């Protein structure tokens, strides 16, 4: 075999080996990479499912808590007053009340029934404010702020631009979000000043600020039980195409901004 042939064979062996090694490396890389990605995908799905389970459990817990609160309001307020009114009426019917106290007893019973009516109205209003259906979101939020405003905690409401029509479901969801945010500021943040801004421009923007003790966003998000309020606001906002921005740090109060884009606005922003 001459030198030229030897050189060609050497080149052939080396070249082919390199090419085959490269081909093998590519094939093994594809298998390894795909399998690795598959494992990551499964792990992410499991985490997501776990998170959804926890979120569902927390939502059920909070619903149960709300039901208990309503049951307690009905039992302790309405139930107790109706029982007392019934007792008075029974005494009136059996004639056990002396004639001179009759008028006072009837007055007391009427007062109890009036109080019961007020309590039922309050419970009903807490569940679904009548002003929301009758006068719209602005009026309902204003009414809510006025009702909660007191010497210890100032709750202010401001709005900008001309209100426009929203569907009942949208109004109710926005109202519930504002209610939840004010409730959080009162209950958890112990705020002394709460402000609600409603900007009817495009996009519709709602800002709720407070000067309370604030919170660590990452920590709250990490604990599903603590963060269920935030997730519930985000879920409600997403139902009507809204985005929520939370800004808070311990000791600095908090600001929550909800931006709601209508479908055509979302399309426009996507195109732009």
């Amino acid at each position, binding site marked *: 075999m001459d030198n030229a042939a030897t050189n*060609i064979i050497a080149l*052939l062996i080396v070249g*082919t080996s390199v*090419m085959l090694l490269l*081909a093998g490396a590519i*094939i093994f890389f*594809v*298998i390894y990479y795909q399998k690795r990605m598959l494992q990551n995908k499964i792990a992410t799905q499991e985490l997501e499912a776990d998170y959804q389970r926890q979120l569902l459990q927390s939502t059920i817990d909070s619903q149960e808590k709300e039901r208990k609160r309503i049951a307690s309001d009905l039992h302790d307020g309405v139930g107790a007053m109706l029982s007392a009114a019934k007792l008075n009426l029974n005494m009136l019917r059996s004639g056990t009340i002396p004639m001179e106290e009759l008028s006072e007893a009837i007055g007391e019973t009427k007062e109890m029934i009036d109080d019961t009516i007020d309590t039922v109205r309050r419970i009903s209003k807490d569940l679904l404010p009548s002003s929301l259906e009758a006068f719209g979101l602005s009026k309902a939020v204003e009414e809510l702020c006025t009702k909660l405003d007191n010497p210890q905690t100032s709750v202010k409401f401001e709005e900008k631009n001309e209100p426009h029509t929203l569907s009942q479901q949208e109004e109710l969801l926005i109202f519930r979000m504002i209610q939840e945010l004010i409730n959080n500021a009162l209950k958890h943040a112990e705020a002394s000043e709460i402000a609600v801004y409603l900007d009817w421009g495009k996009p519709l923007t709602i800002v709720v600020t407070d000067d309370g003790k604030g919170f660590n966003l990452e920590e709250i998000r990490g604990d599903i039980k603590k963060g269920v309020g935030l997730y519930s606001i985000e879920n409600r906002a997403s139902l009507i195409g809204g985005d929520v921005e939370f800004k808070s740090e311990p000791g600095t109060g908090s600001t929550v901004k909800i931006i709601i884009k209508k479908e055509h606005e979302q399309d426009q922003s996507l195109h732009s």
Partner: protein
Amino acid sequence: MDYTLYYYIAAFLMLLSSGIAFFIGLRQSAGTLRVVVIYLLVSFLSDLIFRIAYIFFDFYIKTGVFFRLVEFVLLIEFYSLILQLKKLTIFKRFIQVISVVLYIVIFEFDLTLMRTTNSVFFSLLSTGFFIKMIMEMKVNDPLKFPLFWINAAFLVYFSGSVFFSLSFDILGRLHEMSAVLSFGFHNTLGLAKNILIAIAFWISYKHSDWDKSLLEIKERK
């Protein structure tokens, strides 16, 4: 082992494996896989005719030229389908026509040039398909995905054949035994390719639920 014997055994096994792979592939209904089935049939027939003519009639018939030409056209079709180059249909036809013209006019049916062109071109396309697979991440398990096996078969075969294609003729002139050995090795690569394609067909048959999303274009047609 005698180099010639090795060459004949490898050639026989390659012929046999292409026939077996073709028969396994006959059950395939997906358009993309049918292109590969036709490719195997052409490979089997061209090899068979060559062997019969050479062994029984001592006549050297250049079936390889016809095979390389058909191989180019069929595999361009195959890769345009699996790479979903639907916007490049006219370009694909243009390439196919140009390649035929090139082979006839410029290469003058030069088998070395045809082999080398096919080897380089399809090595690149098969690498391209793997890159696409990784980027899209549509396939959960590549080992249960027939197109992965077929593409691996082509990648191994064509990338392994690049240097052989270039050196066949020169070696044949300089040192006949080395040329026989390199032909034998080339046939071994062909055998590996056919086995991998047969595995692909078998997987497609066993796992009828394999991800066919990459074949959507053909099915829509």
